């Protein structure tokens, strides 16, 4: 079938580049011809280790029109992490840009992946329409970049279900001129902030992700481009509320905030700054195509953790905390009673890529166990109170402690390790680590730091280290990361800069 998606215009506010509909179709057609020259076939996978620029979106459409599957990748991953993902997903091609690290290009080449520069298209144009609704459209790797990757697979059907649901719940008027400041390699930024408006025919303005210099002039950006909608994460507001002048043109109609629920105080501050009361938490999980619940009309009193109603989803809070047994209606919590958040939506992922074990532990009878804890209020709205997911939320980017543990465990002198979240004034959370070393001298610490920089992207590197005698465990031998945090946080952490500087002097 032909994908009958109606694209809107694309603009890069920072560079000033802009493509209208005819140019977008031309760019897609050139890439289809180019992919055909590279024998890209239906069912093939294509890595996209770049994003947040016009070319990314036309690559995506060209890949889809040929029936292939796009795999957007965080450009900051190390060659080691890229290699891990390549071995799992076996992409036929990778499309890169001029910012792609030379070591990443080398890793892709060594793995036998064909590498194409996104601007290298040639003039030949071609048409294609081979996608079917149940073809894999996107794989988004959410963790396991150092070991056993966990990739969320969305089909065209599940993505369309998300976009149709959002159109029904929210309409498209407020999204007429949408700004995206978020990365395009994860669900929130890509599926909802970018693709929902853009593939509903609305104008998308895309910037490089998480750039403080852009956030600091956010008000001017909103005014200059008459932005009607933007999504965000709390760390954007930590910067903008403090350092950016508010917009004055009054064009913003709606603002979403995802990743972590807003407190009532920050929520009201954002309303004041943006000049619109239509500010809400957009509760989203990559597995459910991101935004799955929120407030369709957000003009209500701000409350800590208030999400709202399901958007194309049934939201239930249950006492059941796992997928080991079929869900029972009796396990549903009463209004106000805290429990585990479950979701049922036609936008649910197909499953985790080649990891049926993980899919079975997260999904039962079409219900997805989110790992979040909350309750339904008297009005039937979801309110979030915490999460049981094993992840660190650093400025909206999810970092998985197990990924970091897996790297450190392979270091020759590491006897035990536990990575955990530390509260941070700017990022919300950052990464801490407790390590048991069987050699505790500075040289070993320097060697471990070097080991980690080779295997982990910079944003995942722990900012505070504790060298400890042992990692506390539960009576069942399991690590409780919160307990390790509590045991470490009051103690002085390692003076890492001094130790690393000592190595340079030697």
């Amino acid at each position, binding site marked *: 079938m032909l994908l009958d998606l109606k694209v809107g215009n694309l603009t890069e506010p920072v560079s000033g580049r802009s493509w209208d509909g005819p140019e977008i179709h031309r760019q897609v057609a050139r890439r289809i011809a180019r992919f055909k020259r590279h024998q890209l076939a239906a069912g093939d996978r294509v890595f996209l280790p770049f994003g947040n620029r016009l070319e990314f979106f036309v690559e995506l459409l060209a890949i889809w029109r040929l029936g292939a599957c796009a795999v957007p990748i965080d450009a900051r991953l190390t060659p080691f992490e890229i290699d891990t993902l390549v071995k799992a997903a076996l992409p036929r091609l990778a499309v890169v840009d001029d910012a792609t690290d030379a070591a990443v290009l080398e890793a892709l080449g060594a793995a036998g992946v064909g590498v194409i520069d996104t601007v290298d298209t040639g003039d030949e144009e071609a048409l294609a329409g081979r996608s079917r609704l149940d073809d894999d459209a996107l794989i988004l790797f959410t963790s396991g970049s150092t070991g056993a990757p966990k990739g969320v697979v969305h089909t065209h059907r599940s993505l369309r279900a998300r976009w149709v649901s959002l159109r029904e719940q929210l309409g498209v008027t407020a999204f007429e001129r949408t700004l995206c400041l978020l990365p395009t390699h994860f669900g929130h930024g890509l599926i909802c902030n970018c693709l929902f408006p853009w593939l509903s025919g609305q104008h998308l303005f895309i910037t490089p992700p998480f750039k403080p210099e852009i956030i600091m002039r956010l008000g001017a950006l909103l005014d200059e481009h008459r932005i009607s909608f933007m999504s965000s994460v709390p760390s954007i507001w930590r910067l903008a509320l*403090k*350092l950016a*002048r508010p917009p004055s043109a009054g064009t913003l109609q709606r603002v979403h905030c995802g990743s972590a629920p807003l407190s009532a105080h920050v929520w009201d501050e954002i309303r004041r700054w943006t000049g619109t009361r239509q500010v809400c938490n957009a509760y989203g999980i990559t597995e459910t195509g991101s935004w799955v619940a929120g407030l369709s009309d957000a003009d209500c009193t701000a409350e800590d953790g208030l999400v709202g109603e399901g958007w194309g989803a049934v939201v239930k809070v249950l006492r059941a905390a796992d997928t080991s047994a079929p869900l029972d209606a009796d396990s549903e919590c009463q209004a106000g009673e805290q429990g585990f958040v479950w979701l049922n939506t036609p936008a649910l992922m197909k499953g985790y890529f080649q990891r049926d074990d993980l899919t079975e532990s997260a999904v039962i009878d079409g219900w997805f166990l989110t790992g979040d804890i909350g309750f339904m209020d008297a009005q039937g709205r979801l309110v979030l109170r915490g999460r049981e997911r094993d992840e660190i939320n650093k*400025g909206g980017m999810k970092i998985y402690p197990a990924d970091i543990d897996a790297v450190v465990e392979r270091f020759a002198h590491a006897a035990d390790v536990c990575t955990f979240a530390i509260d941070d004034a*700017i990022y919300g959370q950052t990464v801490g680590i407790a390590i048991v070393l069987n050699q505790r001298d500075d040289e070993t610490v320097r060697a471990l730091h070097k080991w980690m920089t080779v295997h982990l992207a910079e944003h995942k590197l722990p900012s505070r280290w504790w060298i400890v005698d042992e990692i506390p465990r539960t009576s069942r031998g399991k690590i409780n990361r919160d307990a390790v945090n509590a045991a470490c946080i009051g103690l002085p952490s390692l003076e890492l*800069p001094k130790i*690393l500087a000592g190595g340079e002097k030697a």
Partner: protein
Amino acid sequence: MSEERQQQLQELIEFLRSIQKPNKPIEQIGADENLVTSGLIDSLALVEIVVYLENTYGIDFSTHGFEPERLSSMTSILDFIEQART
């Protein structure tokens, strides 16, 4: 350099140590060198410098506005403190 400015510099260096990336010794950064492009701090850490200046020197950024280049190096931060307090 006046004694007061020398004291401010020492305090600033101690503060920067608490927010810097681990693999870039502050001793290797010149006073006029850009703190972000030199790799000492993440650009998001500029907000932490703002909070430090608000808390330590009572500087009100809503009055002075925020221009990242005025906090780009140790020298420019000290100049900014001086201007903001006069």
